């Protein structure tokens, strides 16, 4: 169970405004290969801040983050190298509007992994087929629906062959009828053994796909467990209160 720890977080704190806002207030976590960790919690509990700290889009005030054993909070560590191994999917997709879908997907592998363009395009086409968007390779992001954009954002991250994917509320900006198509892609990935950390309000997804559910409040992990236990038998009053509201 302890082997293959991919990400190790130690005493992570993130303070704003000279410590008056404690977005993260001491988090310890281990994420193992193949795990799907689902993070839930009320608004402002620090879920996004935690996820964004994992690839140092936010710089922690205190604490350490180890990726494959390397402490990325150490300034001497090559951060860009480590970020290549951690794909990220944003709430608002963040596709590059001036590039085609194929351009979006092949940019990083060609420029960073030095993959030949032909090979990158072939890989991108295969991934597009897998998410049912093979016919949109030449389209621009502005021509796609939200659900399509998010599926592209996921396969764009996959083009870097990451070891772990981070999702920050990937379905929150979508019209309800498009949520399913994105969650389906994520379920497929989980089934294929992709390591994932997912911040979401989709409790169905957490229950069905999560190997572990983490409940955060006030910048701390209040409770974590396998989804069956956590949802059926919440121990802390904060979680009971939260679940009563969202379920």
């Amino acid at each position, binding site marked *: 169970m302890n082997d293959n720890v991919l990400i190790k977080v130690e005493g992570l704190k993130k303070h704003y405004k000279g410590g008056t806002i404690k977005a993260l207030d001491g988090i310890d976590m281990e994420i193992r290969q193949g795990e799907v960790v689902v993070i839930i919690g009320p608004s402002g509990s620090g879920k996004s801040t935690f996820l964004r700290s994992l*690839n140092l889009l936010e*710089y922690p005030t205190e604490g350490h983050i180890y990726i494959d054993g390397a402490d990325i909070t150490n300034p001497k560590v090559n951060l860009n190298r480590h*970020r290549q191994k951690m794909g990220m999917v*944003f709430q608002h997709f*963040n*596709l590059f509007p001036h590039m085609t879908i194929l351009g979006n997907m092949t*940019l*990083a592998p060609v420029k*960073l992994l030095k993959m030949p363009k032909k090979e990158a395009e072939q890989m991108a086409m295969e991934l597009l087929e897998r998410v049912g968007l093979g016919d949109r390779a030449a389209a621009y992001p*502005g021509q796609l629906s939200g659900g399509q954009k998010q599926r592209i954002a996921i396969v764009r991250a996959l083009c870097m062959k990451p070891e772990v994917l981070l999702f920050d509320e990937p379905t929150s900006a979508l019209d309800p009828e498009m949520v399913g198509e994105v969650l389906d892609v994520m379920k497929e990935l989980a089934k294929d053994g992709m390591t994932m950390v997912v911040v979401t309000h989709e409790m169905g997804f957490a229950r069905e796909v999560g190997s572990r559910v983490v409940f955060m409040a006030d910048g701390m992990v209040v409770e974590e467990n396998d989804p069956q236990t956590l949802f059926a038998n919440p121990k802390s009053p904060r979680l009971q209160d939260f679940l009563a509201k969202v379920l």
Partner: protein
Amino acid sequence: MGAWFEGFKANAGAWFEDFKATFRLNFIEDNRYMYLVNGLKNTLIITVFAALLGIALGIIVASVRTTFDKNEESMRMRNKGLYIVMKIANTVCKVYLTVIRGTPVVVQLMIMYFIIMASSTNSVLIAILAFGINSGAYVAEIFRGGIMSIDNGQFEAGRSLGFSYFRTMYHIVVPQVIKNVLPALLNECIALLKETSVAGYVSIQDLTKGGDIIRGRTYSAFMPLIMVALIYLIVVVVLTWLVGKVERRLKVSER
């Protein structure tokens, strides 16, 4: 009715003869039109090179300012030395922007001519420097505004894929910025062209000064000044038409 028309014809005829005489006096005699030709040449040389200098300065200043703003925290956490260097550079840029945008361009030109470059006799070069340094401040703010208008999510997407800050700028942000700022940049060049008309303050013979010299020789103000205005107008209208064309092209390529 007929008599009125006859009267009008005679008047118009006299007016036209008068016009011809003044035109001859102001532009043909002593080859006075050469003041305008040489003046326009100087105006265009000063504008083009000042614009190039301004764009170069603008890119440098905007790069320093946005790099500092976007990476302040990461530099402070990961590279203290670089942070201090960038903070100093950023402060220098801010002072430059404040001073240049807070003082009239004529005063800047006179300081350049009578103080900084007092030993130089190349007045066109002095004007290029003064107007270029002035324009750089405005161009810098155009570029900075363009970069800041790009959603931060674009930077974050680039960084999360593993691109460095500079490669994110190069591959992802700058191509979008250029599209956004090109029209504003061309408009700045048009404004610059008109601004150079104060070059005569330091005895540079630009287009405006050329017209003024003719006025001094012929003691007739109307024709030389209207001609100068007309030439500026034609150049500006042509440039504005070009900007519109560029804008339309950018719109078409936008999807």
